[in-house]
Protein backbone atom coordinates (compact mmCIF):
# COMPACT_ATOMS: atom_id res chain seq x y z
CA UNK A 1 0.00 0.00 0.00
CA UNK A 2 1.56 3.30 -0.96
CA UNK A 3 3.04 5.05 2.02
CA UNK A 4 0.60 7.53 3.59
CA UNK A 5 1.46 11.20 3.19
CA UNK A 6 0.28 14.32 4.99
CA UNK A 7 -0.76 16.72 2.25
CA UNK A 8 -1.55 19.88 4.19
CA UNK A 9 1.29 20.80 6.51
CA UNK A 10 0.52 23.26 9.30
CA UNK A 11 1.96 26.57 7.98
CA UNK A 12 5.38 27.55 9.35
CA UNK A 13 4.24 31.19 9.34
CA UNK A 14 1.58 30.39 11.95
CA UNK A 15 2.62 29.95 15.58
CA UNK A 16 1.05 27.20 17.61
CA UNK A 17 -0.86 29.72 19.69
CA UNK A 18 -4.53 28.74 19.60
CA UNK A 19 -6.62 31.37 17.85
CA UNK A 20 -9.29 33.01 20.01
CA UNK A 21 -11.82 33.54 17.21
CA UNK A 22 -15.41 32.37 17.48
CA UNK A 23 -16.08 28.88 16.09
CA UNK A 24 -16.44 29.17 12.30
CA UNK A 25 -15.07 32.72 12.12
CA UNK A 26 -13.29 33.10 8.79
CA UNK A 27 -10.52 35.19 10.37
CA UNK A 28 -8.95 31.78 10.99
CA UNK A 29 -9.21 30.89 7.32
CA UNK A 30 -7.68 34.21 6.33
CA UNK A 31 -4.79 33.70 8.76
CA UNK A 32 -4.08 30.26 7.29
CA UNK A 33 -4.16 31.49 3.69
CA UNK A 34 -1.79 34.40 4.42
CA UNK A 35 0.55 32.10 6.34
CA UNK A 36 0.57 29.55 3.50
CA UNK A 37 1.42 32.31 1.01
CA UNK A 38 4.26 33.57 3.21
CA UNK A 39 5.61 30.01 3.41
CA UNK A 40 5.25 29.42 -0.34
CA UNK A 41 7.07 32.68 -1.14
CA UNK A 42 9.74 31.86 1.47
CA UNK A 43 9.67 35.33 3.01
CA UNK A 44 8.81 34.60 6.65
CA UNK A 45 12.04 36.08 8.04
CA UNK A 46 11.62 39.26 5.98
CA UNK A 47 7.96 39.68 6.94
CA UNK A 48 6.59 42.19 9.44
CA UNK A 49 2.96 41.66 10.41
CA UNK A 50 1.07 44.83 11.32
CA UNK A 51 -1.59 43.79 13.81
CA UNK A 52 -4.34 46.38 14.07
CA UNK A 53 -7.25 46.89 16.45
CA UNK A 54 -10.25 44.59 16.25
CA UNK A 55 -10.88 40.86 16.69
CA UNK A 56 -7.55 40.27 14.95
CA UNK A 57 -5.53 42.43 17.37
CA UNK A 58 -3.68 39.32 18.55
CA UNK A 59 -2.43 38.62 15.03
CA UNK A 60 1.10 39.25 16.35
CA UNK A 61 0.64 36.11 18.48
CA UNK A 62 -0.65 34.04 15.56
CA UNK A 63 1.76 34.94 12.74
CA UNK A 64 5.27 33.60 13.41
CA UNK A 65 6.97 36.72 12.01
CA UNK A 66 8.25 40.05 13.31
CA UNK A 67 5.22 42.13 14.19
CA UNK A 68 4.12 45.60 15.26
CA UNK A 69 0.78 46.31 16.92
CA UNK A 70 -0.65 49.54 15.48
CA UNK A 71 -3.13 52.01 16.93
CA UNK A 72 -6.67 51.72 15.60
CA UNK A 73 -6.76 52.76 11.93
CA UNK A 74 -3.05 53.55 11.71
CA UNK A 75 -1.68 50.28 10.35
CA UNK A 76 -0.98 51.71 6.88
CA UNK A 77 1.02 54.58 8.43
CA UNK A 78 3.02 52.19 10.61
CA UNK A 79 3.63 49.98 7.57
CA UNK A 80 4.80 53.05 5.65
CA UNK A 81 7.29 53.91 8.38
CA UNK A 82 8.70 50.40 8.37
CA UNK A 83 8.94 50.09 4.58
CA UNK A 84 10.72 53.46 4.37
CA UNK A 85 13.33 52.12 6.82
CA UNK A 86 13.51 48.55 5.45
CA UNK A 87 12.42 48.60 1.78
CA UNK A 88 13.54 44.96 1.59
CA UNK A 89 11.10 43.86 4.29
CA UNK A 90 7.78 42.27 3.39
CA UNK A 91 5.09 44.16 5.28
CA UNK A 92 1.37 43.45 5.44
CA UNK A 93 -1.36 45.06 7.49
CA UNK A 94 -4.19 42.81 8.65
CA UNK A 95 -7.21 45.09 9.12
CA UNK A 96 -10.93 44.79 9.75
CA UNK A 97 -13.59 47.06 8.23
CA UNK A 98 -13.77 49.29 11.31
CA UNK A 99 -9.99 49.75 11.40
CA UNK A 100 -9.56 50.30 7.67
CA UNK A 101 -12.75 51.97 6.47
CA UNK A 102 -13.86 53.85 9.57
CA UNK A 103 -11.16 55.43 11.74
CA UNK A 104 -8.38 54.50 9.29
CA UNK A 105 -9.93 55.67 6.03
CA UNK A 106 -7.48 58.57 5.77
CA UNK A 107 -4.47 56.34 6.19
CA UNK A 108 -5.58 53.65 3.73
CA UNK A 109 -6.49 56.13 0.97
CA UNK A 110 -3.20 58.00 1.25
CA UNK A 111 -1.05 54.87 1.51
CA UNK A 112 -2.78 53.66 -1.66
CA UNK A 113 -2.44 57.06 -3.32
CA UNK A 114 1.30 57.02 -2.55
CA UNK A 115 1.56 53.53 -4.01
CA UNK A 116 3.22 52.52 -0.75
CA UNK A 117 4.82 49.14 -1.36
CA UNK A 118 3.08 46.94 1.22
CA UNK A 119 0.14 44.54 1.24
CA UNK A 120 -3.23 45.00 2.95
CA UNK A 121 -5.35 42.05 4.04
CA UNK A 122 -8.76 43.69 4.51
CA UNK A 123 -11.31 41.58 6.39
CA UNK A 124 -14.80 42.87 5.61
CA UNK A 125 -17.40 41.27 7.88
CA UNK A 126 -19.74 44.27 7.89
CA UNK A 127 -19.66 44.78 11.68
CA UNK A 128 -17.43 45.80 14.60
CA UNK A 129 -16.71 42.38 16.10
CA UNK A 130 -14.43 42.84 19.10
CA UNK A 131 -16.51 45.65 20.58
CA UNK A 132 -19.66 43.50 20.42
CA UNK A 133 -21.40 43.99 17.11
CA UNK A 134 -21.79 47.65 16.29
CA UNK A 135 -22.50 49.04 12.81
CA UNK A 136 -19.46 49.40 10.59
CA UNK A 137 -18.89 51.45 7.41
CA UNK A 138 -19.60 48.27 5.44
CA UNK A 139 -22.76 47.28 7.34
CA UNK A 140 -25.41 46.51 4.71
CA UNK A 141 -28.62 48.48 4.30
CA UNK A 142 -31.25 47.15 6.68
CA UNK A 143 -28.67 45.09 8.59
CA UNK A 144 -29.39 45.01 12.32
CA UNK A 145 -26.42 45.67 14.61
CA UNK A 146 -26.12 46.78 18.22
CA UNK A 147 -26.02 50.39 16.99
CA UNK A 148 -28.51 50.02 14.18
CA UNK A 149 -31.08 48.00 16.14
CA UNK A 150 -33.89 48.72 13.66
CA UNK A 151 -31.69 47.91 10.70
CA UNK A 152 -29.34 50.37 8.97
CA UNK A 153 -31.16 53.16 7.15
CA UNK A 154 -29.73 55.75 4.77
CA UNK A 155 -31.34 58.59 6.74
CA UNK A 156 -29.54 57.62 9.92
CA UNK A 157 -26.24 56.24 8.65
CA UNK A 158 -25.84 56.55 4.92
CA UNK A 159 -24.65 53.70 2.74
CA UNK A 160 -21.97 51.00 3.04
CA UNK A 161 -18.58 51.89 1.49
CA UNK A 162 -17.06 49.82 -1.32
CA UNK A 163 -13.35 50.16 -0.52
CA UNK A 164 -11.92 48.40 -3.59
CA UNK A 165 -13.92 50.56 -5.98
CA UNK A 166 -12.87 53.64 -4.01
CA UNK A 167 -9.15 52.80 -4.18
CA UNK A 168 -9.45 51.75 -7.82
CA UNK A 169 -9.81 55.45 -8.75
CA UNK A 170 -6.21 56.05 -7.63
CA UNK A 171 -3.01 55.63 -9.66
CA UNK A 172 -1.02 54.29 -6.70
CA UNK A 173 -2.44 50.80 -6.21
CA UNK A 174 -0.82 47.99 -8.23
CA UNK A 175 -3.14 45.19 -7.10
CA UNK A 176 -6.72 45.38 -5.83
CA UNK A 177 -9.03 42.39 -5.50
CA UNK A 178 -12.16 41.50 -3.60
CA UNK A 179 -12.64 37.85 -2.73
CA UNK A 180 -14.88 35.92 -0.35
CA UNK A 181 -14.03 33.37 2.35
CA UNK A 182 -17.25 31.47 1.74
CA UNK A 183 -17.31 28.34 -0.46
CA UNK A 184 -14.25 26.13 -1.13
CA UNK A 185 -13.70 27.53 -4.62
CA UNK A 186 -14.00 31.09 -3.31
CA UNK A 187 -11.36 30.32 -0.69
CA UNK A 188 -9.06 28.91 -3.38
CA UNK A 189 -9.57 32.04 -5.45
CA UNK A 190 -8.91 34.20 -2.37
CA UNK A 191 -5.59 32.47 -1.84
CA UNK A 192 -4.59 33.16 -5.43
CA UNK A 193 -5.32 36.85 -4.94
CA UNK A 194 -3.46 36.96 -1.62
CA UNK A 195 -0.45 35.43 -3.32
CA UNK A 196 -0.72 37.92 -6.22
CA UNK A 197 -0.81 40.75 -3.70
CA UNK A 198 2.38 39.61 -1.97
CA UNK A 199 4.03 38.97 -5.35
CA UNK A 200 3.14 42.54 -6.33
CA UNK A 201 4.95 43.78 -3.23
CA UNK A 202 7.95 41.52 -3.86
CA UNK A 203 8.15 42.87 -7.41
CA UNK A 204 8.22 46.38 -5.92
CA UNK A 205 5.21 47.40 -7.96
CA UNK A 206 3.55 49.25 -5.04
CA UNK A 207 0.35 49.12 -3.02
CA UNK A 208 -1.61 45.86 -2.97
CA UNK A 209 -4.88 45.10 -1.22
CA UNK A 210 -7.13 42.06 -0.97
CA UNK A 211 -10.60 42.56 0.50
CA UNK A 212 -11.92 39.32 1.96
CA UNK A 213 -15.66 39.12 2.59
CA UNK A 214 -15.80 37.33 5.92
CA UNK A 215 -18.32 35.97 8.38
CA UNK A 216 -19.32 37.20 11.80
CA UNK A 217 -22.14 34.88 12.65
CA UNK A 218 -21.99 35.90 16.30
CA UNK A 219 -23.11 39.46 15.53
CA UNK A 220 -25.12 38.56 12.43
CA UNK A 221 -27.13 36.37 14.77
CA UNK A 222 -26.83 33.30 12.53
CA UNK A 223 -25.30 29.84 12.60
CA UNK A 224 -21.73 29.64 11.25
CA UNK A 225 -22.84 27.71 8.14
CA UNK A 226 -25.73 30.10 7.51
CA UNK A 227 -23.28 32.99 7.72
CA UNK A 228 -21.13 31.45 4.99
CA UNK A 229 -24.12 31.49 2.62
CA UNK A 230 -24.95 35.02 3.74
CA UNK A 231 -21.52 36.04 2.40
CA UNK A 232 -21.95 34.05 -0.82
CA UNK A 233 -25.49 35.16 -1.61
CA UNK A 234 -26.07 38.52 0.10
CA UNK A 235 -22.79 40.30 0.69
CA UNK A 236 -21.50 39.66 -2.82
CA UNK A 237 -24.54 41.58 -4.13
CA UNK A 238 -23.31 44.84 -2.59
CA UNK A 239 -19.63 43.89 -2.66
CA UNK A 240 -19.07 42.26 -6.08
CA UNK A 241 -16.10 39.90 -6.30
CA UNK A 242 -13.54 41.16 -8.79
CA UNK A 243 -9.85 41.56 -9.56
CA UNK A 244 -9.97 45.34 -9.94
CA UNK A 245 -6.35 45.73 -10.87
CA UNK A 246 -3.36 43.45 -11.32
CA UNK A 247 -0.33 45.36 -12.59
CA UNK A 248 1.72 42.21 -12.83
CA UNK A 249 -0.51 40.99 -15.64
CA UNK A 250 -2.08 44.29 -16.56
CA UNK A 251 -5.58 42.92 -16.53
CA UNK A 252 -8.67 43.17 -14.43
CA UNK A 253 -11.46 40.65 -14.80
CA UNK A 254 -14.48 39.35 -13.00
CA UNK A 255 -13.55 36.74 -10.45
CA UNK A 256 -14.24 33.63 -12.46
CA UNK A 257 -16.50 31.89 -10.01
CA UNK A 258 -15.86 28.42 -11.39
CA UNK A 259 -12.13 28.92 -11.98
Amino acid sequence: MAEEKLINRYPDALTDVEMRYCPGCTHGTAHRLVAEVIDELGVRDRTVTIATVGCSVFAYEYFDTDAVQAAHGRGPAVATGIKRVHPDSVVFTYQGDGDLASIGMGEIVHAAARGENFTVIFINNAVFGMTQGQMAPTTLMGQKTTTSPRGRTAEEAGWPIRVCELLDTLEGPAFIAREALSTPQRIRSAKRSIKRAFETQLAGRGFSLVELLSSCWTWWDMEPVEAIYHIENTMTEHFPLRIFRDCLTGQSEEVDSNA
Partner: protein
Amino acid sequence: MSETADTRKSVFISGNEATAEGGIAGGCRHFFGYPITPQNEIPEYMSEHLPEIGGVYLQAESEVAAINMVYGAAAAGARVMTTSSSPGIALMQEGLSYMLGSELPAVFVNMVRGGPGLGNIAAAQSDYWLATRGAGHGDGRCITLTPYSVQELHDFTAGAFEIADRYQNIVMVLADAILATMMEPCELIPRRDLPLPDRPYAVGPHDRSERERNIINSLWIDFDVMEAVNLRIEERYTRAGEEITDWEEFGSDDPQIMLCAYGISARICESVVMRADEAGVRLRLIRPRTVFPFPTEPIRRWAERVDATLVVELSMGQFVEDVRLAVEGSCPVELLARSGGNMPTPGDVLQKVREVARHVGVAAK
Protein backbone atom coordinates in the same frame (compact mmCIF):
# COMPACT_ATOMS: atom_id res chain seq x y z
CA MET B 1 38.56 79.78 8.80
CA SER B 2 39.20 76.37 7.34
CA GLU B 3 36.37 74.07 7.91
CA THR B 4 37.60 70.71 9.14
CA ALA B 5 35.23 67.89 10.06
CA ASP B 6 35.12 68.69 13.72
CA THR B 7 35.00 72.45 13.59
CA ARG B 8 31.61 74.11 13.62
CA LYS B 9 30.53 76.35 10.78
CA SER B 10 28.99 79.60 11.93
CA VAL B 11 25.82 80.67 10.09
CA PHE B 12 22.97 83.14 10.51
CA ILE B 13 19.93 80.93 10.49
CA SER B 14 16.30 80.64 11.64
CA GLY B 15 15.31 78.52 14.61
CA ASN B 16 13.36 76.16 12.36
CA GLU B 17 16.29 75.56 10.03
CA ALA B 18 18.69 75.21 12.96
CA THR B 19 16.31 72.61 14.41
CA ALA B 20 16.19 70.66 11.16
CA GLU B 21 19.97 70.76 10.73
CA GLY B 22 20.28 69.74 14.38
CA GLY B 23 18.16 66.70 13.64
CA ILE B 24 20.43 65.73 10.75
CA ALA B 25 23.53 66.32 12.86
CA GLY B 26 21.99 64.13 15.57
CA GLY B 27 21.76 61.27 13.08
CA CYS B 28 18.13 61.55 12.00
CA ARG B 29 17.69 60.03 8.56
CA HIS B 30 13.90 59.54 8.63
CA PHE B 31 11.44 62.43 9.01
CA PHE B 32 7.65 62.18 8.73
CA GLY B 33 5.95 65.54 9.00
CA TYR B 34 2.95 67.68 8.18
CA PRO B 35 2.64 71.36 7.43
CA ILE B 36 1.55 73.61 10.30
CA THR B 37 2.67 77.17 11.01
CA PRO B 38 5.02 78.20 12.59
CA GLN B 39 7.28 75.16 11.98
CA ASN B 40 6.94 74.74 8.20
CA GLU B 41 10.58 75.49 7.39
CA ILE B 42 11.55 72.27 9.19
CA PRO B 43 9.74 69.82 6.89
CA GLU B 44 10.74 72.03 3.95
CA TYR B 45 14.40 71.83 5.00
CA MET B 46 14.17 68.09 5.57
CA SER B 47 12.48 67.50 2.21
CA GLU B 48 15.39 69.25 0.52
CA HIS B 49 18.35 67.87 2.50
CA LEU B 50 17.47 64.39 3.78
CA PRO B 51 17.28 62.79 0.33
CA GLU B 52 20.72 64.33 -0.45
CA ILE B 53 22.25 62.15 2.28
CA GLY B 54 20.26 58.96 1.65
CA GLY B 55 17.59 59.89 4.17
CA VAL B 56 13.80 59.75 3.83
CA TYR B 57 11.42 62.69 4.02
CA LEU B 58 7.72 61.84 3.81
CA GLN B 59 4.85 64.24 4.17
CA ALA B 60 2.06 62.35 5.92
CA GLU B 61 -1.63 62.93 5.34
CA SER B 62 -2.10 64.19 8.89
CA GLU B 63 -0.22 64.48 12.15
CA VAL B 64 -2.04 61.33 13.26
CA ALA B 65 -0.53 59.48 10.31
CA ALA B 66 2.85 61.17 10.82
CA ILE B 67 3.24 60.01 14.41
CA ASN B 68 2.32 56.46 13.41
CA MET B 69 4.90 56.51 10.64
CA VAL B 70 7.40 57.65 13.28
CA TYR B 71 6.22 54.73 15.46
CA GLY B 72 6.76 52.29 12.57
CA ALA B 73 10.19 53.68 11.71
CA ALA B 74 11.24 53.59 15.37
CA ALA B 75 9.98 50.00 15.60
CA ALA B 76 12.25 49.26 12.62
CA GLY B 77 15.20 50.77 14.53
CA ALA B 78 15.67 54.08 12.71
CA ARG B 79 16.66 57.44 14.27
CA VAL B 80 13.41 59.18 13.52
CA MET B 81 11.88 62.60 14.20
CA THR B 82 8.85 64.71 13.54
CA THR B 83 8.00 68.31 14.33
CA SER B 84 4.72 70.16 14.66
CA SER B 85 2.93 72.94 16.52
CA SER B 86 0.33 72.78 19.29
CA PRO B 87 -2.78 71.48 17.42
CA GLY B 88 -0.60 68.96 15.57
CA ILE B 89 1.08 67.83 18.76
CA ALA B 90 -2.39 67.38 20.29
CA LEU B 91 -3.29 65.07 17.38
CA MET B 92 -0.14 63.02 18.02
CA GLN B 93 -0.95 62.21 21.63
CA GLU B 94 -2.26 58.68 21.12
CA GLY B 95 0.77 57.84 19.00
CA LEU B 96 3.11 59.20 21.67
CA SER B 97 1.40 56.98 24.23
CA TYR B 98 1.88 53.95 21.94
CA MET B 99 5.59 54.79 21.67
CA LEU B 100 5.85 55.01 25.45
CA GLY B 101 4.02 51.71 25.90
CA SER B 102 6.29 50.08 23.31
CA GLU B 103 9.39 51.75 24.86
CA LEU B 104 10.59 53.21 21.55
CA PRO B 105 12.95 56.21 21.18
CA ALA B 106 12.10 59.16 18.92
CA VAL B 107 12.45 62.95 18.88
CA PHE B 108 9.64 65.51 18.62
CA VAL B 109 9.70 69.29 18.42
CA ASN B 110 6.73 71.49 19.36
CA MET B 111 6.89 75.10 18.18
CA VAL B 112 4.13 76.23 20.51
CA ARG B 113 1.62 78.77 19.24
CA GLY B 114 -1.26 80.72 20.76
CA GLY B 115 -4.17 78.60 21.88
CA PRO B 116 -6.48 76.98 22.73
CA GLY B 117 -8.37 75.92 19.62
CA LEU B 118 -7.07 77.14 16.31
CA GLY B 119 -5.54 79.92 18.38
CA ASN B 120 -3.05 81.87 16.29
CA ILE B 121 0.49 81.54 15.03
CA ALA B 122 2.08 83.75 17.66
CA ALA B 123 4.44 82.53 20.35
CA ALA B 124 3.11 80.94 23.53
CA GLN B 125 4.15 78.51 26.24
CA SER B 126 0.66 77.10 26.81
CA ASP B 127 1.62 73.51 25.87
CA TYR B 128 3.84 73.03 28.95
CA TRP B 129 1.39 70.55 30.50
CA LEU B 130 0.83 68.84 27.14
CA ALA B 131 4.59 68.31 26.86
CA THR B 132 5.48 67.40 30.43
CA ARG B 133 2.20 65.72 31.44
CA GLY B 134 1.03 64.77 28.00
CA ALA B 135 2.22 61.94 25.76
CA GLY B 136 -1.35 60.82 25.63
CA HIS B 137 -3.22 58.52 27.92
CA GLY B 138 -1.67 56.50 30.68
CA ASP B 139 1.43 57.09 32.72
CA GLY B 140 4.71 57.85 31.01
CA ARG B 141 5.89 61.28 29.93
CA CYS B 142 8.07 62.99 27.37
CA ILE B 143 11.61 63.85 28.43
CA THR B 144 11.26 67.57 27.66
CA LEU B 145 14.04 69.99 26.72
CA THR B 146 13.48 73.76 26.69
CA PRO B 147 15.93 75.73 24.50
CA TYR B 148 15.90 79.54 24.57
CA SER B 149 17.99 80.38 21.50
CA VAL B 150 18.55 79.28 17.93
CA GLN B 151 21.84 77.72 19.04
CA GLU B 152 20.15 75.71 21.79
CA LEU B 153 17.37 74.63 19.37
CA HIS B 154 20.16 73.24 17.16
CA ASP B 155 22.16 71.63 19.96
CA PHE B 156 19.18 70.27 21.94
CA THR B 157 17.59 68.69 18.84
CA ALA B 158 20.90 67.08 17.90
CA GLY B 159 21.44 65.82 21.45
CA ALA B 160 17.87 64.58 21.84
CA PHE B 161 18.49 61.39 19.85
CA GLU B 162 21.19 60.16 22.19
CA ILE B 163 18.92 60.92 25.18
CA ALA B 164 16.02 59.09 23.53
CA ASP B 165 18.20 56.06 22.88
CA ARG B 166 19.70 56.10 26.37
CA TYR B 167 16.33 56.13 28.14
CA GLN B 168 14.39 54.36 25.37
CA ASN B 169 11.84 57.12 25.68
CA ILE B 170 10.42 59.86 23.48
CA VAL B 171 12.07 63.27 23.81
CA MET B 172 10.23 66.54 23.19
CA VAL B 173 12.05 69.76 22.32
CA LEU B 174 9.62 72.45 23.54
CA ALA B 175 10.04 75.84 21.88
CA ASP B 176 7.71 78.47 20.44
CA ALA B 177 6.84 80.54 17.36
CA ILE B 178 9.47 83.20 18.11
CA LEU B 179 12.35 80.79 18.64
CA ALA B 180 11.16 78.99 15.49
CA THR B 181 11.14 82.00 13.19
CA MET B 182 13.77 84.35 14.58
CA MET B 183 17.26 84.26 13.11
CA GLU B 184 20.45 84.28 15.16
CA PRO B 185 24.07 83.28 14.66
CA CYS B 186 24.50 79.55 15.18
CA GLU B 187 27.53 77.27 15.25
CA LEU B 188 26.46 74.19 13.27
CA ILE B 189 27.44 70.75 14.52
CA PRO B 190 29.31 69.01 11.70
CA ARG B 191 27.33 66.24 10.02
CA ARG B 192 28.78 62.79 10.58
CA ASP B 193 27.46 59.36 9.70
CA LEU B 194 26.60 58.19 13.19
CA PRO B 195 26.24 54.40 13.31
CA LEU B 196 22.87 53.25 14.65
CA PRO B 197 23.03 51.92 18.19
CA ASP B 198 22.40 48.20 18.63
CA ARG B 199 18.63 47.71 18.62
CA PRO B 200 17.92 44.08 19.53
CA TYR B 201 14.20 44.84 19.73
CA ALA B 202 13.86 46.22 16.20
CA VAL B 203 11.77 44.53 13.50
CA GLY B 204 12.97 43.89 9.96
CA PRO B 205 14.63 41.25 7.81
CA HIS B 206 16.67 38.92 10.03
CA ASP B 207 18.22 35.53 10.28
CA ARG B 208 16.12 33.31 12.53
CA SER B 209 19.28 31.60 13.76
CA GLU B 210 20.56 34.95 15.03
CA ARG B 211 17.45 36.17 16.78
CA GLU B 212 13.91 35.16 17.57
CA ARG B 213 11.09 37.15 16.01
CA ASN B 214 10.58 40.63 17.52
CA ILE B 215 7.20 42.02 18.53
CA ILE B 216 6.69 45.75 19.12
CA ASN B 217 3.55 46.00 21.16
CA SER B 218 1.85 47.86 24.00
CA LEU B 219 -1.11 45.53 24.53
CA TRP B 220 -0.63 43.74 27.88
CA ILE B 221 -3.68 41.84 29.05
CA ASP B 222 -1.88 40.61 32.18
CA PHE B 223 -2.11 43.30 34.92
CA ASP B 224 1.32 42.52 36.39
CA VAL B 225 2.99 42.68 32.97
CA MET B 226 1.36 46.05 32.28
CA GLU B 227 2.46 47.34 35.69
CA ALA B 228 6.00 46.06 35.08
CA VAL B 229 6.15 48.19 31.91
CA ASN B 230 5.17 51.26 33.93
CA LEU B 231 7.69 50.50 36.68
CA ARG B 232 10.43 50.06 34.05
CA ILE B 233 9.55 53.42 32.49
CA GLU B 234 9.48 55.18 35.90
CA GLU B 235 12.88 53.77 36.78
CA ARG B 236 14.29 55.40 33.64
CA TYR B 237 12.84 58.76 34.69
CA THR B 238 14.53 58.48 38.07
CA ARG B 239 17.82 57.75 36.31
CA ALA B 240 17.26 60.63 33.87
CA GLY B 241 16.60 62.93 36.82
CA GLU B 242 20.02 62.09 38.22
CA GLU B 243 21.84 62.16 34.88
CA ILE B 244 20.43 64.85 32.59
CA THR B 245 18.56 67.45 34.66
CA ASP B 246 19.87 70.77 33.29
CA TRP B 247 19.42 74.45 34.06
CA GLU B 248 21.25 77.76 34.04
CA GLU B 249 21.45 80.47 36.67
CA PHE B 250 22.07 84.18 36.07
CA GLY B 251 22.24 87.18 38.36
CA SER B 252 22.92 88.09 42.01
CA ASP B 253 24.56 85.58 44.34
CA ASP B 254 22.55 87.10 47.17
CA PRO B 255 19.12 87.54 45.55
CA GLN B 256 16.02 88.86 47.28
CA ILE B 257 13.68 87.64 44.51
CA MET B 258 14.17 84.57 42.32
CA LEU B 259 12.92 84.70 38.75
CA CYS B 260 11.94 81.37 37.15
CA ALA B 261 11.39 81.21 33.39
CA TYR B 262 12.25 78.99 30.44
CA GLY B 263 12.47 79.49 26.69
CA ILE B 264 11.64 82.90 25.25
CA SER B 265 10.41 84.18 28.65
CA ALA B 266 13.87 83.57 30.05
CA ARG B 267 15.37 85.81 27.35
CA ILE B 268 13.16 88.62 28.65
CA CYS B 269 14.09 87.83 32.26
CA GLU B 270 17.81 88.02 31.42
CA SER B 271 17.25 91.63 30.39
CA VAL B 272 15.32 92.19 33.59
CA VAL B 273 18.18 90.81 35.73
CA MET B 274 20.60 93.12 33.89
CA ARG B 275 18.32 96.07 34.77
CA ALA B 276 17.65 94.94 38.37
CA ASP B 277 19.14 98.10 39.85
CA GLU B 278 16.29 100.11 38.23
CA ALA B 279 14.00 98.39 40.73
CA GLY B 280 16.63 98.34 43.46
CA VAL B 281 16.01 94.64 44.07
CA ARG B 282 18.63 91.87 43.81
CA LEU B 283 17.44 89.27 41.30
CA ARG B 284 18.56 85.81 40.23
CA LEU B 285 17.12 83.90 37.27
CA ILE B 286 16.84 80.12 37.31
CA ARG B 287 16.30 78.89 33.74
CA PRO B 288 15.46 75.22 33.24
CA ARG B 289 16.98 73.68 30.11
CA THR B 290 15.08 70.48 30.93
CA VAL B 291 11.57 70.64 32.39
CA PHE B 292 11.25 66.88 32.57
CA PRO B 293 13.27 65.87 34.46
CA PHE B 294 12.58 69.12 36.37
CA PRO B 295 15.42 71.05 38.15
CA THR B 296 13.73 70.87 41.54
CA GLU B 297 16.93 71.00 43.65
CA PRO B 298 18.32 74.40 42.62
CA ILE B 299 14.87 76.07 42.75
CA ARG B 300 14.21 74.62 46.19
CA ARG B 301 17.68 75.66 47.41
CA TRP B 302 17.30 79.30 46.27
CA ALA B 303 13.63 79.46 47.37
CA GLU B 304 14.83 78.94 50.97
CA ARG B 305 17.10 82.01 50.65
CA VAL B 306 14.94 84.54 48.73
CA ASP B 307 11.94 86.48 49.95
CA ALA B 308 9.77 85.56 46.94
CA THR B 309 9.76 83.81 43.58
CA LEU B 310 8.36 85.35 40.42
CA VAL B 311 7.52 83.06 37.51
CA VAL B 312 7.25 84.62 34.04
CA GLU B 313 5.33 82.50 31.58
CA LEU B 314 3.46 82.86 28.29
CA SER B 315 0.41 80.94 29.49
CA MET B 316 -2.21 81.28 32.20
CA GLY B 317 0.08 79.37 34.55
CA GLN B 318 1.36 75.85 33.86
CA PHE B 319 5.12 75.93 34.43
CA VAL B 320 4.38 77.85 37.65
CA GLU B 321 2.87 74.72 39.19
CA ASP B 322 6.12 72.77 38.83
CA VAL B 323 7.93 75.73 40.40
CA ARG B 324 5.46 75.70 43.31
CA LEU B 325 6.04 71.96 43.74
CA ALA B 326 9.79 72.59 43.92
CA VAL B 327 9.45 75.62 46.24
CA GLU B 328 7.04 73.67 48.45
CA GLY B 329 5.91 76.76 50.31
CA SER B 330 9.29 77.98 51.51
CA CYS B 331 8.51 81.37 49.94
CA PRO B 332 5.58 82.99 48.11
CA VAL B 333 5.42 82.25 44.38
CA GLU B 334 3.83 84.84 42.13
CA LEU B 335 3.11 84.63 38.40
CA LEU B 336 3.37 87.15 35.57
CA ALA B 337 1.25 85.51 32.89
CA ARG B 338 0.58 86.74 29.36
CA SER B 339 -1.04 84.65 26.61
CA GLY B 340 -2.57 84.67 23.16
CA GLY B 341 0.73 85.82 21.71
CA ASN B 342 1.18 88.77 24.08
CA MET B 343 4.46 89.06 25.93
CA PRO B 344 5.68 91.16 28.85
CA THR B 345 8.40 93.70 28.17
CA PRO B 346 11.37 93.83 30.55
CA GLY B 347 9.74 96.97 31.93
CA ASP B 348 6.54 95.05 32.64
CA VAL B 349 8.53 92.42 34.54
CA LEU B 350 10.42 95.07 36.50
CA GLN B 351 7.09 96.61 37.46
CA LYS B 352 5.89 93.19 38.65
CA VAL B 353 9.16 92.76 40.60
CA ARG B 354 8.42 96.02 42.45
CA GLU B 355 4.90 94.78 43.21
CA VAL B 356 6.12 91.39 44.49
CA ALA B 357 8.78 93.18 46.59
CA ARG B 358 6.07 95.32 48.19
CA HIS B 359 4.02 92.18 48.96
CA VAL B 360 6.90 90.66 50.92
CA GLY B 361 8.26 93.83 52.48
CA VAL B 362 11.37 94.16 50.36
CA ALA B 363 12.34 97.77 49.62
CA ALA B 364 12.15 98.66 45.93
CA LYS B 365 12.57 101.79 43.80
